[in-house]
Structure formats: structure tokens, C-alpha cells
């Protein structure tokens, strides 16, 4: 019997015992909010604090959430027993129904079942992947790597133009052969396609990986495993704007919603390769900037205050310069120097010179 299933049963048995003893059924759930998240300087990760909130069935405001959490747990237990996996959307429909004699639906929106599942993760200390719930597949990878997934051998170098699409659960993957000097994770799928077409990974003996925007849990876990198990440096390639910086921040230090899983997600060794302020001068991108908006300025000011950036001279310098330029730049701005400028000149040069922020 899997440990995840045991944890779910333990939760159920404890609650049932309380009820039979005529004690108020309460689930204690660590609070997942800004007020209960701290930055640990030692491990350089965001960590969940000790604050807990009660979910009491006999409380008007809690009763529904209490029920939602139980429903999600029951569905998950069933999946584990049958050895099947469901998507978040599946979970929503498996939980959704109308309570007899009322007009109340147990869940009205997928956000509610997603949130109940995140609660279940913090209560049981098992990730949703371990509870047999998968997020949408997103992201591609290519490189000289051979892995085994559910008995199939997969060669990341021979996946055609689309690359291997990264599953949401990468726990069971076994690395058979890893032949690479480093990994580049990029914010833009279009940039990944450029590098793939240019055979960048082959020429430079590395792994290229991307998704659209924020890295999914599967990607973050895969990057962590490559870093931990094969000691590969991880480079991040993102836009020169607050959102690009934040993608890096989440990869390296973790995020509030998943603070309880920081341990298995964060990448202390991640390096920010570009685009940085210096690139704009060095590579003549000045004519290809985009003016920043008020919302960008606000976001930069928030980033400046984050504990992990606050005393980081390199990053404070980037923020200041962006505010001084009053402009941001996309990775694709490099294409103004030629379509393959990024793969032939920019990246090899930056990596050779060791120009990155960490």
C-alpha cells in the first residue's frame, strides 16, 4: 500500500474517531498565504510557517470547505487504489454534485477543487502527483539524454521537431544516460523552437527546456533532479521585465502557493543568463525596447523589496536600470540582429564568459 494512501486513510480514521467520541471534527490546515510564508536565508527558499487554520465542520463558514477537502481526499484514495491518474479538471467533475434538498453544489468552480487539493497536500504532506492527480502537460525538452518512463526508453535527442513533452509527474522517470554540460530553461516556447531548429543543444552539448511562462511543477521537479542527481548548472533565459525576473525567482526560491513543497522544487543553483540590462548596450538592442507601464513599475518596486533580492547588488542594479530606461526587452529582440543570432552568438558568448546573475 502506498504511503500516500496510508496518509489519506489516517486523516479519515482520525476524523471518524473524533466524531464517534462526540468531539468536534476539525482539520488543521497550515495557512498558505503571504502572512505565513518566510524566506529561509540558510536554504535560500521560501518556507511555510507554523500558522494553521481550523476547518471545523460545525462552523457555517467552514462546513463547505471541510466537505470539499474530504471529497477530494476520497477521490484521490480511489484513484490510488485503482492505480489511475486524473487531471485537475477530472477531479472537479468527480467531486461536483448537488447536495440533496438544497441548491448547493459541493464545488461550483474548478478553483474550489484545486484549492481543496492544495489543502490536502499540506495536510498529508504528499504532492498532488503523489496523490495521482496530474496537471496539464506543458513544456518540451531536447538534448543528449536517455530516460526510462513506465518501461519505455526515450531518447531526448530523437524526438523530432517537437521534442519530448514533459509529463506532469516526473517522479518515476529513471535517467539512463545524461550527456550534457548544462541546462537552459527558457520562458518562451518560440525561442526553444529556434534553438532546436538550430541544433543548439547538439552543437553546445546541453539540454534545452521550455514551457509557456511560469514553469510547471513537472518542469521544476525535472530541473531539480537534473541539478541534484547530475550536478548540471541550470541557466534561465527570460525577458528583461518584472515577469521574466519573477519566473526566475519562483524557480530558484519557490512560491507562496507551493511553499509547503519548496524542498522538492527549488533550485538554489539556478542562474539568470539574460536578458539583462548590460545586454541591451552590448548587443545593440536599444532600438528594440518596449516602454514600461505603471503596472510594471509597481511590480519592480515589489521585487526590490523581496528579502532575497533586497541585499543582492546585481539584482538591485537590474531593477534600477529598468526604471532608468523606463523600458523592457523581450528575448526575441535579439532576432533584430539576425534570426540565429541568439544561438550562434549571444548564448555561446554569455556562457563562455560566465555572464550571469545568481
Amino acid at each position: 500500500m502506498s504511503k500516500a494512501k496510508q496518509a489519506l486513510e489516517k486523516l479519515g480514521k482520525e476524523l471518524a474517531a473524533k466524531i464517534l467520541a462526540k468531539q468536534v471534527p476539525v482539520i488543521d490546515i497550515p495557512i498558505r498565504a503571504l502572512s505565513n510564508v518566510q524566506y529561509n536565508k540558510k536554504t535560500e527558499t521560501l518556507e511555510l510557517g507554523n500558522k494553521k487554520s481550523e476547518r471545523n465542520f460545525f462552523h457555517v463558514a467552514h462546513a463547505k470547505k471541510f466537505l470539499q477537502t474530504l471529497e477530494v481526499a476520497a477521490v484521490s484514495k480511489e484513484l490510488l487504489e485503482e492505480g489511475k491518474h486524473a487531471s485537475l479538471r477530472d477531479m472537479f467533475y468527480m467531486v461536483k454534485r448537488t447536495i440533496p434538498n438544497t441548491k448547493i453544489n459541493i464545488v461550483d468552480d474548478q478553483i474550489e477543487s484545486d484549492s481543496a487539493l492544495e489543502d490536502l497536500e499540506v495536510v498529508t504532506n504528499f504532492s498532488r502527483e503523489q496523490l495521482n492527480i496530474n496537471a496539464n502537460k506543458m513544456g518540451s525538452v531536447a538534448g543528449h539524454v536517455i530516460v526510462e518512463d513506465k518501461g519505455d526508453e526515450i531518447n531526448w535527442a530523437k524526438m523530432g521537431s517537437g521534442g519530448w513533452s514533459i509529463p506532469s509527474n516526473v517522479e518515476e522517470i529513471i535517467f539512463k544516460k545524461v550527456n550534457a554540460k548544462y541546462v537552459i530553461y527558457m520562458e518562451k516556447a518560440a525561442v526553444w523552437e529556434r534553438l532546436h531548429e538550430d541544433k543548439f543543444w547538439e552543437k553546445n552539448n546541453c539540454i534545452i527546456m521550455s514551457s509557456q511562462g511560469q514553469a510547471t511543477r513537472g518542469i521544476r521537479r525535472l530541473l531539480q533532479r537534473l541539478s541534484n542527481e547530475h550536478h548540471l548548472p541550470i541557466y534561465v533565459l527570460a525577458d528583461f521585465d518584472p515577469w521574466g525576473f519573477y519566473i526566475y525567482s519562483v524557480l530558484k526560491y519557490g512560491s507562496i502557493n507551493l511553499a509547503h513543497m519548496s524542498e522538492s522544487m527549488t533550485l538554489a543553483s539556478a542562474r539568470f543568463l539574460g536578458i539583462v540590462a548590460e545586454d541591451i548596450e552590448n548587443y545593440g538592442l536599444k532600438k528594440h525596447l518596449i516602454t514600461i507601464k505603471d503596472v510594471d513599475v509597481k511590480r519592480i518596486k515589489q521585487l526590490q523589496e523581496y528579502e532575497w533580492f533586497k541585499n543582492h547588488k546585481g539584482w538591485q542594479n537590474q531593477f534600477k536600470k529598468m526604471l532608468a530606461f523606463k523600458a523592457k526587452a523581450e528575448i526575441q529582440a535579439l532576432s533584430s540582429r539576425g534570426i540565429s543570432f541568439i544561438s550562434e552568438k549571444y548564448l555561446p558568448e554569455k556562457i563562455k564568459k560566465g555572464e550571469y546573475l545568481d
Partner: protein
Amino acid sequence: MVQKTAEELAQKQRDISIAEFFEKNRHLLGFDNPRKALLTAVKEAVDNALDACEEARILPEISVELIQLEETRFRVIIEDNGPGIIRKQIPNIFAKLLYGSKFHKLSATRGQQGIGISAAVLYGQLTTGKPAAIVSKTAPDKPANFLKLKIDTQQNKPQILEEEEKPWDGKDHGIRIEIDMEGSYLKGRQSVDEYLKETAIVNPHTTIIYTNPEAQQTIFPRATEKLPPEPKEIKPHPYGVELGRLMKMMEITEARTLQQFLMTEFVRVFPGTAKEICQNSALLPNMKPKEISRDLAEQLFKGIQKTKIRAPPIDCISPIGAELLEQGLRKEINAEFYCSVTRPASVYRGNPFVIECAMGYGGEQDSESVIRILRFANRVPLLYQQGACAFTNSIQNTVWRSYGLQQSRGSLPVGPCTIVLHMTSVWVPFTSESKEALAHYPEIIKEIKLALQECGRKLGMYINKKKRVGEQQQRVNIFENYIPEVAETLSKLSGVEKEKLTAALVSMLAKNKEYIEAYKVAHEVQKTEEKNKEKQIELGEFDE
């Protein structure tokens, strides 16, 4: 163009009889349209019947019958068990305008002016040409007088068309009046039906038997055998008279000196007070009232205002009483909560008055529309000109939200509620002769508002309690519906039998109804904190 001389014009100048005047200005008396005419005729006859019964200390039993003769023609028949009227007075009372017993005295009766019933006779005569038929019997052993009367409009004098003296079987005493008139019968807020229903509310000692034009009979039985105390007559209070009236009073008084005049014609004036008034007016107490000129009268008028005079006695007015008013309301309005209040007597312009208020909330009343207002003056329902009435304006200017009713600023509140307001006074100030709306005296408005607030507080307490009980029930309902779900799911998760879990949770719920309430309060703080956190996440401080 031919010029006319003053002499020629003078040929057309002549007296106008009061009857002729009202013939042309019937709207002043409430006969403006056929529908209202029907109501006014019934109202005048019923008001007179009630006044007469109360004065004679008889428990009133009044029958009202409307018969439709033609499309727009009705016969109005009202019969009472009052003392009857002696033969000599019948023509004057029914067929002479401004003839009556109530105009010259101050007492809390329904009628005041001596116009009402004769105006109804006049209206019938104008629209159908027919006389009114009157039957009067004053004692069981006497025969009844049967008369057919018309009004000579030029001279304002009664005209007797037929007369007969014969027995009235099965009747001890009383009056019966039949008038044929043009009219229109409609139900609704300003109908005869409504008037009688409301009359029954404020006259719980009265039985009314009503037969409408569709021949349906409604009986409003009396709720109490107790007659209201007889209205006492009082003399005017010095503060209440105007200059013109003061001069008139001095002209007709039998008193020989000014001091005597003040002491005999007014209430609350004793020798000391009379001397003080004279002093304040710079007049001699032994002056002859008839010799006082207009200028001196004005001096006297001002002197009265300067003198401190005790408020008039209040035993001359008899309010319905909070309890009886509430009983009356209960009978006619189906509500779930009632409350009522009778204010202490107060005075405006030297006239004592009492305001009473009753409320009925909930039940079958519509909760989406404006509240219903029932207005009464000296036990008479006021059905017209609601918007111009001091009662209505006082309700509008009271803040009802704190009493549990919805209200937008300055308008009538909304909710399933009926408000009854009643004013008793020796002289009720109306805005017009047709007695439809109360005039706006600050002293009266103040009392109305106090009555409304006193009742409002009781209502507010009830509504709030109801809300609390409702909310708690709702909470219990939530848990009752959730329990089977939780039990089933938890059973899947833990392997414990569903039935056991359900039974345990149900017994906890039963025991913990108070606990649920208390828990809610204790956790209010925590709830707000949680909300703040949720907000933070929504604001995108961190996203993924």
C-alpha cells in the same frame, strides 16, 4: 358697444344661499366624482349614527345597504339602533345645511360642522331629482315618523313632500335613511368596503352589517361590549381663539364684565388668571364686553398670549386605548406581530388631543410593496389625500431602517406592515371641509412621531429577534443537509460505517445549537483575517 349702468348691473346682484353655493361647489364636501359621492354619503350617515348612539349610551348596530338601480344610479340605505330624532328636528337635520348640534361645542365627536348628511341629501336631489326618505322612531311604544324631504336650495330650507306616522315593526328606536343618487361602485382602497372595514377597526364596540351592490353580505361583529366614555364638552381655551372669534364671543356673551366674560366663556380661567389677563392687556376688569372696540379686542388678544394659563383639561377626550385598537387591528389584518401605543394627551392651539398608533407586521401582507397606512381622526377613517396628511408626512420623516423596515430617504417605508394612526381631539384640524387630511401643526407632528417611534421600537425588537432565529435555523439546516454527505465520504475514507458517523454527527448537532451560535462570534475575528489573506493572494502578490 352698449355701456351698462350700475343700476342695471344691480338687478343681477342678490344673496347666495349656502345650499346654492354647495350645489355648485360640491367637491368641497367630498362629492367630486360618482365613486367618492357614494362613499361620502355612506360615511356621513354612519358617522352620525355612531355619534348619536354613543351620546345616548347605546351599543351601535348599523346596517348599510347599497342597491344598484341603474348603471350609474344607486340607492343608499343606512339604518341604526340609535335614539332616533324627534319629529320637529327631522327636517332641519336632514334638509338644511349648516344645522347641527356639534358646531358650537368643543367635544371629540365625529361630526363637526352640520353639513354632512344634508349635503348627501342635496347631492341625491341634484343627481336624481328624488327626495330622501327618512324614518325615525324614538321609543318602543311610539309610532315612527316617515318623511320624504328635499332642500329648497334658494332659501336653504327643508321641504316636506310626504309625511306619515305609522308603526315600524320590530324596531325599538333608530333612524333609517334612504337616498337615491348617482354613483359608481368599485372596490379598493377608497371604497365603501374599505371605509366600513376601517371603521370596524377603530370602533370595536360597533357591529356593522354591510350588503354591497352584488348582494353579498359582510358582518363586522363588535369586539367589545364596552362603550367608549361619552365625549365631554369643554369651553374653548384662551390660547385657541382667534381675534375674530374673540370679538364675536364678546358680542353674544351674557356676561356683564370683562372678568366675568373671561371666567365663564373659557376653560382654565379663574379670577386670578382673569385679572392677570386684564392687566397684561391694559384693560379694566369691569369693562363691559359689548363695548370693547376692535382695537381694544386686539389688546386683549395680545394680553392673553402674554399670560401664562394652565393647559386645558384632558378628560374631555377619550382615546380608543392601545389594547382595543390592537384588538380591532387583529380582527381585520392578518399579521404575525401586533403592537400599539396611546400617547399621553397634549395640546395644540389650546385644544387637547391624543395620538394613538398600532402596527401589524408580517403574515399575509406583501413584503415587496410600500407599507399600508390607516389614518383615523375621531374614529373616522380618512381615505383620501393620503399624501397631504400630517400622518403620512410624519411616517415619511421617521427613520425606519433601525426598526427593521426598508426605506429610501424621505419616502414611505417598504415591508409587510400596516400602521394605524388615530388622532382624538375636541377639534381635529383638517386641511379642507371634506375632512380628508390632517393639517400640519408642529405640536401634532411631534406627538405622531413619538407614537411612531415608540411602536417602531417594539416592532424593531420583534423583527431583529425573528431575523436571529431565522439565521440560526438556516445554519442548522446547512448542517442537516451536509451531514449525510460528510458521513458517506468519511466512511469511504476511513472504513467506519456511514450510519454510525451520521448518528454521531446528528446528536452533536442537536446538542450544539447554542454552541454553533457561540462559535460564530468567537471566530468572527479569525474570519476577517482569513479574508484579508485571500485578498492578498487575489492581488497577485505571488502567482504561479
